[in-house]
C-alpha cells in the first residue's frame, strides 16, 4: 500500500496531465467561440429574414439541447451520417476526439455569446451611429472604433459568467473519452478507491475560476475610466 503522501503526488501529477487537456479545450473554445459569437450576433440581427431565421434556429438548437449530446453528434456524426472515417484525422498533435470536442464547445458557446453580444449591440443608442455617420466614418470604422469597444464594456460581466461556466463544462468532454481533468479524476478515484481525487480536481477547477475572476475584474476596472 502506498503512503498517503505518494498517493496525493500521483493524484496531482495525473490530474495535471488532464489539466493540460482541460486548459486546451478552454482556450481553444474561447478563441473560436468569441469571434464566431460576434458573427452569429450579426447574423441574428441581419435584415435578411432568411439569414436571421436560420441563425435564430441555430441558436435555439444550441441552447435547447444538451451540450453532451452535441459533442457526441459532432464526434460520431461524420461516420454514422456521412460514412466519413475520422479515426485518422489529425491536426498537428490533436486527434479527432479533441478536435470534435473543441468544435462542439465552440458551436455551443458561440450561440450563448451571440445572444450576449446582441443584447450589448442593441443597447447602444442610435445617436452613436448617427454621430459617426455624419462625421463620415464608414460602417466598418463605426463598428470597430465606436460601437464594439463600448459593447465589450457592457457585456463583460455576462461574458465572465459564461467563461466560468465553460471551465466547469470542460468536464463534459469525458463523453468522448478525452482524458481531461475530470476523466482523470474519475479513473484515479476508482483505482485508489478514494474520493480524494475528486476533491483535488474540485480544488483545481475552483482555483482556475478564481484566477478568471481576478483577471476579469481587472479588465472591468480598466474599462471603468468612463461611464
Amino acid at each position, binding site marked *: 500500500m502506498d503512503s498517503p503522501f505518494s498517493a496525493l503526488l500521483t493524484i496531482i501529477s495525473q490530474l495535471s496531465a488532464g489539466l493540460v487537456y482541460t486548459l486546451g479545450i478552454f482556450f481553444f473554445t474561447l478563441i473560436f467561440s468569441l469571434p464566431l459569437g460576434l458573427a452569429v450576433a450579426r447574423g441574428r440581427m441581419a435584415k435578411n429574414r432568411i439569414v436571421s431565421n436560420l441563425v435564430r434556429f441555430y441558436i435555439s438548437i444550441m441552447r435547447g439541447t444538451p451540450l453532451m449530446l452535441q459533442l457526441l453528434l459532432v464526434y460520431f456524426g461524420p461516420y454514422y451520417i456521412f460514412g466519413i472515417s475520422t479515426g485518422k484525422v489529425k491536426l498537428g498533435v490533436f486527434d479527432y476526439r479533441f478536435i470534435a470536442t473543441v468544435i462542439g464547445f465552440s458551436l455551443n458557446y458561440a450561440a450563448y455569446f451571440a445572444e450576449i453580444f446582441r443584447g450589448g449591440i442593441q443597447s447602444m*443608442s442610435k*445617436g*452613436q451611429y*448617427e*454621430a*459617426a*455617420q*455624419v*462625421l*463620415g*466614418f464608414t460602417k466598418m*470604422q463605426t463598428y470597430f*472604433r*465606436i460601437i464594439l*469597444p*463600448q459593447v465589450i*464594456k457592457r457585456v463583460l460581466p455576462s461574458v465572465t459568467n459564461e467563461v466560468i461556466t465553460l471551465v466547469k463544462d470542460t468536464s463534459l468532454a469525458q463523453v468522448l473519452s478525452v482524458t481531461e481533468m475530470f476523466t482523470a479524476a474519475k479513473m484515479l478515484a476508482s483505482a485508489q478507491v478514494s474520493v480524494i481525487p475528486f476533491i483535488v480536481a474540485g480544488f483545481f477547477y475552483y482555483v482556475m475560476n478564481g484566477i478568471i475572476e481576478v483577471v476579469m475584474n481587472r479588465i472591468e476596472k480598466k474599462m471603468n*475610466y*468612463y*461611464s
Partner: protein
Amino acid sequence: MSVLEIKDITKSFDGLSVLKGISLTVDKGEVVAVIGPSGGGKSTLLRCATTLENVDGGSISIGGDVLVSTEKSGHPHYCDKATLQRIRSKFGLVFQNFNLFPHFSVRRNITEALIHVHKKDRIEADLICDKLLVKMGLEEKADAYPCNLSGGQQQRVSIARALATNPEIIFFDEPTSALDPELTQGVLKVIRELAAEHMTMVIVTHEMSFARDVADRIIFMDGGVIVEEGPAEQVINHPMNERTKEFLSGY
C-alpha cells in the same frame, strides 16, 4: 452663393406626412433659425439635410454637390457613395443630446474623424483640436472624458467636433434643449461667436430671443410647412401670420 439648397422636399413616416414640400436656401455666411412647435417638422427637415433620413421627394444640394434630386417620375434619386462622403465632409451636425463618443477623450472625440476619415496626421489633427478647444474655453479638458464634463461643456465639445473638419455649414438641432438654463448661456455664447465670424448655420431652437439676436433670417414651421419666413427681427417682433403670433405669444 448658396451653401444649402433645399427644394420642395417631402417626407412621411408610416403614411403620416411630416414635411409637405419645404424649400429653403441658405447663403454663405447666413444664419437661419428654424422655430416652431414640436412635431412641426423642424428636426425632420434637419435630419433630411444631414443624410440621416431619406426624403420621399424634392432635391437637396450642399456646397454645390447634389445629395438628392427627384426626376419627373417622382422617385428621389440619391447620389453615389463618393459624393455622399464628400457631402458629409461639407457639413457638421450638433445634436440635441450631444452624442459624443463616451469611450474617447475630448481630444479623440475631436480628432478621430480628422485622422481616420480626412487622413490628416496626428500632429495636424492635434493642432486643430487645440485651437478649437481654446475657442470653446475648454483648453484644460483635452484629456477629460465626456462623463466628467457638464452638459454645457459636452455640447461645446460636440460643436468643436463638428467644426474640426472645417465644414461649409453647421446644423444645430436644438443645441440647448437638454441643458439647464445656467449651462445654456455658454453654448449660446459660442454659437454667437461663430455667427460673428460668419459661419453659415442652420439652427433649430426654442430660444426665441437667442434666435432673434443671432439669426439673419427666421423660419417658422408648423404642420410640415413653412408658415412664415423673414428677417429675424420682423418674424419675432412683428409676425404677420396668425399661427406665428399664437406660437410666439407663448414665449
